[in-house]
């Protein structure tokens, strides 16, 4: 299928990406070509084939439910973009009523 700019913008928004007009144009063309190409998979006889979740034979992996130390707050402070009084700071998330 051909993708149009509207669909590209909608999908970009789902992925929380804001595209410039130039990016929208470029991606619409390129991703249309790519999608048309990958539709080649429709030629594969996948009728009753089981989808591959794992490659190597894997079983559920369990561990003891035991508390242990995780990263120290001082380590998190070093990598957080904004950090105050032991917490990561983000912009206001609840709109105020004016």
């Amino acid at each position: 299928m051909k993708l149009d700019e509207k669909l590209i913008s909608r999908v970009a928004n789902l992925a929380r990406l804001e595209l410039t007009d130039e990016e929208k144009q470029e991606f619409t063309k390129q991703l249309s070509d790519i999608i048309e190409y990958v539709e080649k998979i429709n030629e594969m006889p996948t009728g009753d084939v089981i989808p591959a979740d794992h490659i190597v034979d894997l079983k559920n992996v369990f561990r003891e439910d035991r508390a242990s130390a995780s990263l120290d707050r001082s380590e998190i402070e070093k990598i957080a973009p904004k950090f105050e009084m032991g917490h990561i700071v983000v912009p206001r998330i609840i709109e105020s009523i004016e």
Partner: protein
Amino acid sequence: MITDKTISSLSEMLEKKEISSREICQAYLKRISDLNGRLNAYITVDPGMLMVEAGISDERRSSGKQLSRYDGIPIAVKDNISTKGVKTTCASRILSNFVPPYDAHSYEQMKSRGFLLLGKTNMDEFAMGSTTETSYFGPSKNPFNTDRVPGGSSGGSAVAVSSGMAPGALGSDTGGSIRQPAAFCGVVGIKPTYGRVSRYGLVAYASSLDQIGAFATTVGDAAVLLSTISGHDVRDTTSIDREVDFRPGDLSGDVSGVRIGVPEEYFEGVSEEIAAVIKNKISLLEKSGAVVEKISLKYTEYAIPVYYLIATAEASSNLARYDGVRYGLRPEGINNLSDLYLKSRSEGFGREVKRRIILGTFSLSSGYYDAYYMKALKGRTLIIRDFQDAFSKVDAIISPVTTTTAFKIGEMISDPLQMYMSDILTISTNLAGIPGISVPVGVDGKGMPIGLQIMGDHFREKTILSLAANVEKTCEKIKPEI
């Protein structure tokens, strides 16, 4: 020259006290300061820290407390493998100042044997690319011809080893990202079986395909590095507990009776020069006693669509974590949460990463999931079965690594589909989770290196390394004049 030596011979010299770790590290730092400006293999090098570590290693050795025979040898590490206290950028703007608070398991393993960190190498942004051109820090250059790409995504690691800026390196391989740059730069590159090496601390691109592996100048050295980083780790639930049976002493190079499959599909569209060199090497293996037969991997042509649907779907999910909240880039002047997500991601990611996130989000989105993503997972099963059938008849599969030698910088960057199609010979091994190695076997008429690929069944690293050791004996050493 020290920087021409293998890991094994450096280790021998250290053991005999003919050289110190400080001398080795100084030689590599000098080589890096001479060449890195032209080749752009490294993103981060910290000479001060390295020399301190080298001094500590020398002290350990002089008091007989070396951590292994390799204690004091410096190794380059791809910049998507976390190194505590040392910047790990993934060659992305969004992580350009990120200093991880912990080590990847593979790097911990290296440190526990006394290997030192020489530097962090350049790559395609988030390992998405086949040339290193998508790096936020600019492309690496091929040491055989600086107008050409080194391959990718682990291009910096391949360049460092090829040009003598490192005796060995770690990389990661999601669709060929170790084997293809190894082939383009004339070095050995191995991707192990999925699960052989813990992915803990590897920045995730496509989790069901990503595997850490190694670059070296010889097959023996590649075995040294891979055996060092292999092993079970509870922090990666896909990590598998298997015996490591491929240390250099385990590799006889004896190939008599080994059954080799040659898939005809892997020679379609391959340049005549490359096909001729690979076929010649296969006939030499036959003369050494290997049994060669033609096989068919009939779903090969579907590997690219299957791979790019699965890899991008996983990427779109993995890269959702970059939201400007806990770490990574957060642009200034943002006053609501949805802008925080939008601006951090839109300003932090480069074009190829955005393209792949959008493609992956599309194939996972409501209305398209069954036709694209689910269909690709089923196609993956067929590709896995292809290999299962093949390995019921043969012990190893031999093919070229790439259809051409290294292409020019800029040649494919504006045509992503053409770039994706260049991965045709390497991506199936990731889809099937099997090990693969690239061995340098010669150069083409333009002097650019050619790689031979050997693939084995799950956990048969020993088989492919032994074959590779045999092939290596029949090849002249390839070195760039740089």
